[in-house]
């Protein structure tokens, strides 16, 4: 009788899996951990499906479950997750070789060096396309905090990746330019 509701829920859940995985891999920098995280998210979402408010943002709801699971797991197993360079290339190594592949690995390596807060904010807003308000709700913090984390994440990436002739201007100068433009 409640089957149609569950079918809808399941369809929406399946549709969200690729994005949940992409977010999880970005956060963990490791495919295996990310897959576990997404499966845990699916189980929790399914178990709590009656608590989802019809008409609210389903994807944001799922992302909230995932990031909360990540941060509780992360705190538990902090030591193993922090191997930044070791895990950096793992999630992309299964992709077929193609032009730009090395750039991607470099990029992921730089991404892994961002603080968890900055990485999360940057991915949600810059890659996943959530609004600052939605991201703030997902991360349970103020909108201004998300904005400043995104700005600092971008500035830090500029430093880490040493793009262009950043050296000529000095990283601080560039970082400040980034700040004043985006804030």
């Amino acid at each position, binding site marked *: 009788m409640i*089957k149609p509701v*569950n079918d809808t829920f*399941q369809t929406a*859940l*399946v549709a969200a*899996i*690729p*994005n949940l*995985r*992409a977010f999880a*891999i*970005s956060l963990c920098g490791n495919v295996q951990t990310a*897959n576990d995280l997404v*499966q845990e998210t*699916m*189980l929790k979402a*399914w178990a709590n499906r009656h608590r989802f408010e019809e008409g609210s943002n389903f994807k944001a709801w799922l992302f909230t479950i995932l990031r909360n699971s990540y941060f509780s797991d992360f705190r538990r197993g902090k030591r193993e997750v922090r191997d930044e360079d070791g895990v950096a290339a793992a*999630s*992309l190594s299964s*992709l077929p070789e193609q032009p*730009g592949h090395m*750039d*991607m690995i470099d*990029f992921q390596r730089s*991404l892994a060096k*961002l*603080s968890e*807060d*900055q990485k999360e904010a*940057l*991915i949600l807003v*810059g*890659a996943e396309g959530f609004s600052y308000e939605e991201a703030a709700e997902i991360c349970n913090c103020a909108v201004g*905090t998300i904005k*400043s*984390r995104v700005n*600092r994440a*971008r*500035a*830090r*990436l*500029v*430093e880490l*990746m040493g*793009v*262009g*002739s*950043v050296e000529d*201007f000095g990283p*601080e*100068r*560039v*970082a*400040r*330019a*980034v*700040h*004043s*433009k985006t*804030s």
Partner: protein
Amino acid sequence: MTNGNKSTSVDAAGQPACADEADGTQSSSIECGGESETMTASDADGLDDTAGVLLDERVQAQIGQQLTSFYRELVNQPIPQNFMDLLARLDRQEDGK
């Protein structure tokens, strides 16, 4: 000479405010977030500002593009089979009730 000294000191004063952002610490996030006035003030001082902004736009565009293509690659990866198995199992559990 005195003018040069002035802008140098502004720069030096502006840097420490954001220098600790490299550490990505929680506490600095609030400080740096509220620091935009100071930064605008020091930017208004001129120096190589135009070059800085141009560089900023180019670099930001490049990073934005890399972020997008990195993420798109991840989204486009096939869903592992065990995800679908998990869903089928949940569905069966529901039916069994």
